[in-house]
C-alpha cells in the first residue's frame, strides 16, 4: 500500500464512520482488508483500492469501511463491570420501574458476545422486581459482524474467553466444536445495523447503553458528538457503559463515573448511591 492508499483509507474511515484508521499500523490494515479483497475477487489489496478509486461504488466503500473497524470482543469482557451491572445496576433499575421494560442497547455489539452477556446477566441478576422485563438491542456498523451475532454460534475458543463454565452449560448447546446460545436468550435480542454518526434521536429511550471498544478508535472530534447523542437517549437515572480507560473528562457535566473504575457512568450523579450499594 502506498501512502496515498493509506490516506484514502483514513479519509473514508473518518468520513463514513468516524473511525480513526491506524495508518501507523499497515500490517493491521492489511490483515483486515485482505479477506475482503479475496472475497470481492481481487488479486491484492492494491487492486481493491484501485477499484475503490476508479469506481467510487457505495457498496464497496462500505465493505471497506466495515472491514477497517475492529470486530473483536469476548463474553463478559470486563468481569467486574458485568458483575456490577448484574448485581447492582439492573436490580436498581428494575426496582425503580417495575412496570416498564428495561431497555439495554449494545451500541457496537460486534459479534454479539456483549449483548448476550447482558441478557445472561439479567437472567442471573439477584433482587429483581417481580415481573421485571428486559429488552435487548444489538447494533453494529458491520453487517458481517451482525450476521454472526444474530446466528449466536460460537467456536470453542470463543466460548472459553470470559464465559464461566457454569454459564456455558446453562445457556449454550454444543454440536461438536460449535456452541449455540440457547433460543431463550437469542430471542430476547433484536438487531440492527446502525452507524453511530447518523441521527439517533428516533432510537427511543434506553436505560443502559454499552459503548465499548469504540471511543479510543474513534476520531477525537467525533467522540463528543456520539457521547452526547447517546446520553440524550438515557433517562435521568440511565447508565452509559464505556471502557475504564476511555477519557471522558470533557463530559463530566453529563456523566458521573460510578465507583470502582468499571467504566460505568451515570447520567445523574444523584443515583450514584444505588450502584455503590
Amino acid at each position, binding site marked *: 500500500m502506498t501512502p496515498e492508499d493509506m490516506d484514502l483509507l483514513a479519509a473514508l474511515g473518518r468520513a463514513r464512520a468516524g473511525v480513526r484508521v491506524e495508518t501507523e499500523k499497515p500490517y493491521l490494515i492489511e490483515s483486515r482488508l485482505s479477506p475482503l479483497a479475496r472475497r470481492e475477487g481481487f488479486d491484492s489489496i492494491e487492486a481493491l483500492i484501485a477499484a475503490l478509486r476508479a469506481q467510487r461504488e457505495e457498496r464497496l466503500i462500505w465493505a471497506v469501511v466495515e472491514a477497517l473497524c475492529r470486530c473483536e470482543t469476548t463474553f463478559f469482557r470486563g468481569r467486574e463491570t458485568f458483575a456490577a451491572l448484574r448485581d447492582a445496576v439492573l436490580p436498581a433499575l428494575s426496582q425503580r420501574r417495575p412496570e416498564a421494560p428495561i431497555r439495554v442497547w449494545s451500541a457496537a455489539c460486534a459479534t454479539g458476545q456483549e449483548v448476550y452477556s447482558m441478557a445472561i446477566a439479567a437472567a442471573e441478576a439477584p433482587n429483581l422486581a417481580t415481573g421485571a422485563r428486559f429488552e435487548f438491542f444489538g447494533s453494529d456498523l458491520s453487517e458481517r459482524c451482525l450476521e454472526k451475532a444474530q446466528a449466536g454460534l460460537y467456536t*470453542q*475458543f470463543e466460548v*472459553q474467553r470470559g464465559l*464461566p*463454565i457454569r454459564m456455558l*452449560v446453562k445457556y449454550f448447546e*454444543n454440536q*461438536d466444536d460449535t456452541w449455540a446460545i440457547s433460543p431463550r436468550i437469542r430471542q430476547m435480542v433484536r438487531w440492527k445495523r446502525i452507524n453511530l454518526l447518523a441521527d439517533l434521536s428516533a432510537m427511543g429511550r434506553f436505560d443502559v447503553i454499552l459503548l465499548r471498544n469504540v471511543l479510543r478508535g474513534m476520531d477525537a472530534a467525533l467522540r463528543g458528538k456520539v457521547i452526547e447523542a447517546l446520553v440524550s437517549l438515557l433517562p435521568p437515572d440511565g447508565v452509559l457503559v464505556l471502557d475504564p480507560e476511555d477519557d471522558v473528562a470533557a463530559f463530566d457535566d453529563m456523566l458521573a463515573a460510578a465507583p470502582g473504575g468499571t467504566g460505568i457512568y451515570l447520567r445523574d450523579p444523584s443515583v450514584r448511591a444505588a450502584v455503590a450499594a
Partner: protein
Amino acid sequence: MKTCLVVDDSRVIRKVARRVLEDIGFEIAEAADGMEALAWCRAAMPDAVLLDWNMPVMNGIEFLRLLRAEPGGAAPKVVFCTVENSVDHIRAALDAGADEYIMKPFDGDIIEAKFAEAGLL
C-alpha cells in the same frame, strides 16, 4: 507462591501447561495419572489442580472424587483440561466438584481466563 499440580499423561501437554502457569506465577508439580496425583496431594495439598480426564491407571474424574473426600481435599481449585467437550462430561465434572473446565485445544489466554474465573488469580 501458589502451587499448581498439573495432571496429564502427555508430557508435551504438561510442559506447555507448566510454561503458561509459571508465567502467571505458579509453582508447578507434575503427575502423569490420577493415582500419582493423589499421592502428591496426600503429601502436600496444592492450591490448584489442572486435570486431564482420560489417563491410564486412574482417570481425572475418579481422582477428583477421591480428592474431594480426602482431609483438606475440598480446598484446591480444580480446573479440568480435556478433549471431552460434551455437556454431559462438563456437568459430571462440576457435580464431582470441579471449579472450571477447559476444552482442548487451549492456549495461554484460556488458561489464564479460566484460572481467573476459578478465583486463582
